[in-house]
């Protein structure tokens, strides 16, 4: 009888995840033991310092640890994984700044004071009269970030599935916790939950088939088994198809992303920003690893599928975004379209493609966060002014905000001297090198459609007379200013001086197998 062997764990390499998850547990304890008045500041301090510390730890790990499997092979320490972890922590930190603001909404932060009270009831009024806040959102955020960090480094199908659930469960809850328009928010939570659980189930069944094919759930083992095959095996094709569908659900690609507009619209706006940025980064990261490492040997099978999905996603995302009258839905469709551009780089399936995707993720996520941060500031008395009509003439009343928003829209449109241009240029170049010229043509058409949309909004902000129901701009706290400012600044800096970051993504873009 073999004795049970103790697995050797490199705690330093694992430190970012450990810091975030332990901070989340401490946050739950703070809820139990801190008095009501001290909870918010305590949680903010804990959450902020945990994310900052984890970010520093990622840098230390990147500098000091040898690449390779860690924690018995459950996780993989390599360039893309560390880059994505750093990016997730950067975007999460920015999202936390925007989420912590309680000045733009006179009632408090973006979350319902007590989620358990009935919308419109006596208790809800009492809660807002007392100015109570649901501080449990901060531990939930930390759990979600911990899941994201695990998701992009997972090295077997089990860890992938569990990380997906760790990041999803807190999000299902956070989506349903908006302070304003609570019914809409709760329905968005239900929809997101059902779609997310369905995606997990599909991913899991695909994993089961992959295990049935390879006899192992480790990525390296699956890759080895695939490289040994001589004939096409239907089992592994079904496995790849299902895993791909499950991950594309999470990314929100057409035709699996119907939930995106509804959920993005219903969720509290800072959470929407977090989902559109950090969660999308992690989902794309996991997709990259799954496609490149275990199923890299099946490139010829999955590449055509990605071509079709990418084209549909870009075109439909851009076209439907044109028809939207709600700013959050418009940004949701715009994020779908951006997912399509990212998939172009994924489909290129080589090192150039990988580094272009990493850069695109950075450029897109900081801009998206800033965009949703700006949406939280434009308000009417009953909440955020989400109708595009109410944005008319914002440029005259608040030139600074309108300039920032225009910069971000120009970056989404891919105008030179913004990060979006360099990013789009990168994925298009990678696709041409990989021989995907038709995809690039579709991408350019979709960019043109999207550019028309963004220009229309800029025109509305500057050159349309304000209507009577027009929105005002709330004066934000320094937190939101810092978050949005960081996003806008990075958008410009990455557009003007992209070279250092381009060098960085080029160096990091090799998966260890």
């Amino acid at each position: 009888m073999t004795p049970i062997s103790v697995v050797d764990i490199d705690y330093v390499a694992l430190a970012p995840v450990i810091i975030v998850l332990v901070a989340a547990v401490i946050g739950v304890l703070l809820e139990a033991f801190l008095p009501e008045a001290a909870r918010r500041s305590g949680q903010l301090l804990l959450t902020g310092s945990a994310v900052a510390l984890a970010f520093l730890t990622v840098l230390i790990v990147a500098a000091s640890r040898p690449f390779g499997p860690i924690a018995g092979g459950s996780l993989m320490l390599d360039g893309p994984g560390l880059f994505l972890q750093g990016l997730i922590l950067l975007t999460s930190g920015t999202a936390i700044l925007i989420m912590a603001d309680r000045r733009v909404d006179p009632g408090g932060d973006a979350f319902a004071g007590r989620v358990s009270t009935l919308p419109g009831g006596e208790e809800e009024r009492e809660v807002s009269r007392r100015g109570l806040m649901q501080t449990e959102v901060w531990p939930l955020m930390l759990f979600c970030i911990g899941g994201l960090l695990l998701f992009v480094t997972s090295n077997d199908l089990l860890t992938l599935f569990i990380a997906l659930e760790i990041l999803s469960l807190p999000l299902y809850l956070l989506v349903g916790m908006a302070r304003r328009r609570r019914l809409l928010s709760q329905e968005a939570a239900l929809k997101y939950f059902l779609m997310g659980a369905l995606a997990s189930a599909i991913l899991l069944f695909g994993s089961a088939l992959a295990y049935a094919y390879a006899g192992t759930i480790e990525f390296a083992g699956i890759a080895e088994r695939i490289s040994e095959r001589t004939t096409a095996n239907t089992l592994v094709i079904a496995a790849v198809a299902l895993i791909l569908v499950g991950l594309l659900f999470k990314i929100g690609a057409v035709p699996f992303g119907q939930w995106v507009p509804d959920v993005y619209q219903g969720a509290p706006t800072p959470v929407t920003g977090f989902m559109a940025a950090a969660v999308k980064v992690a989902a794309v990261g996991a997709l990259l690893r799954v496609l490149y490492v275990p199923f890299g040997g099946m490139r010829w099978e999955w590449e055509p599928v990605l071509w079709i999905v990418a084209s549909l996603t870009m075109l439909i995302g851009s076209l439907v975004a044109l028809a939207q009258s709600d700013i959050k839905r418009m940004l949701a469709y715009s994020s779908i379209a951006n997912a399509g551009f990212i998939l172009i780089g994924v489909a290129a399936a080589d090192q150039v493609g990988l580094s272009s995707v990493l850069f695109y993720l950075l450029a897109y996520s900081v801009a998206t966060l800033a965009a949703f941060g700006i949406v939280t500031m434009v308000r009417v008395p009953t909440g955020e002014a989400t109708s595009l009509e109410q944005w008319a003439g914002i440029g005259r009343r608040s030139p600074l905000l309108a300039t920032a928003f225009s910069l971000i829209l120009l970056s989404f449109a891919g105008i030179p001297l913004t990060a979006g241009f360099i990013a789009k240029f990168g994925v298009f170049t990678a696709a041409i090198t990989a021989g995907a010229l038709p995809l690039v043509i579709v991408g350019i058409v979709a960019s043109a459609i999207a550019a028309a949309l963004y220009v229309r909004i800029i025109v509305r902000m500057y050159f349309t007379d304000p209507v009577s129901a027009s929105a005002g701009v709330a004066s934000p706290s320094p937190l939101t200013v810092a978050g949005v400012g960081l996003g806008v600044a990075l958008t410009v800096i990455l557009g003007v001086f992209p070279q250092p970051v381009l060098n960085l993504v080029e160096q990091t873009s090799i998966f260890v197998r």
Partner: protein
Amino acid sequence: MTFLFWILATLSVIGGLGMLLSRKAVHSALWLALTMMCLAVLYVAQSAVFLGTVQVIVYTGAVMMLFLFVLMLIGVSAADSLRESIRGQRPVAVLVAVALGATLIAAVGNALDFSVGLQAANAEYGGNVQGLAALMFGRYLIAFEATAALLITAALGATILAHRERLFPRQDQRTRSVERFRSGVHPGQRPSPGVYARHNAVDVPALLPDGSAVPDSIPGPLRARGTVREIDATATEEVLDRLVGGAASDTGGER
């Protein structure tokens, strides 16, 4: 073994279809419980004794009970509407599902024709449970520990959504009674109408000892309709006379 498989496979598919086609959610839950029980036996038949047990305890014991609990809270009678909400959606959905099932069966139908068996794997650490433990606390330790985050999230989430803390002080009998007297509304029963009056009817107000009428003694709807009967002065005089000045034997004999 083959016989057992076909029985259980048929039963579990019947359970699945029953879940799919039952109109009432409770029936669906019970059908699904049947499928899960069959799967538990199929696990045991494939030398996964521990998993079979856990399946019964966790799935049929905890998960399905939770479903039934929520169904009871929501109301068992809540039946699903069978009306199509999007035209033509149902045939398309059936088609998609059948195509998915057929494709999957075609893909997996003869892909795995060997079976090593688990004797060697189980014997390595001295048994099925020991073997699972070796993996769970060894190779998959990170997954095991990360699951803790999941369970805490679930507990925290359920607490946030379901726990209503007391926002107003608890109302006991004393506070409620104090409040009733403070509010200034007449705290006790209203006087009944027609007392001391000649007409013993509900539309005649009661009289106070000084002979004035008590408007509250008339039911509200009658007052609102304005059909309250006046008390004429002579009658009042007469009553007062009898009460105060008249013979004691006459007081009760007016009727």
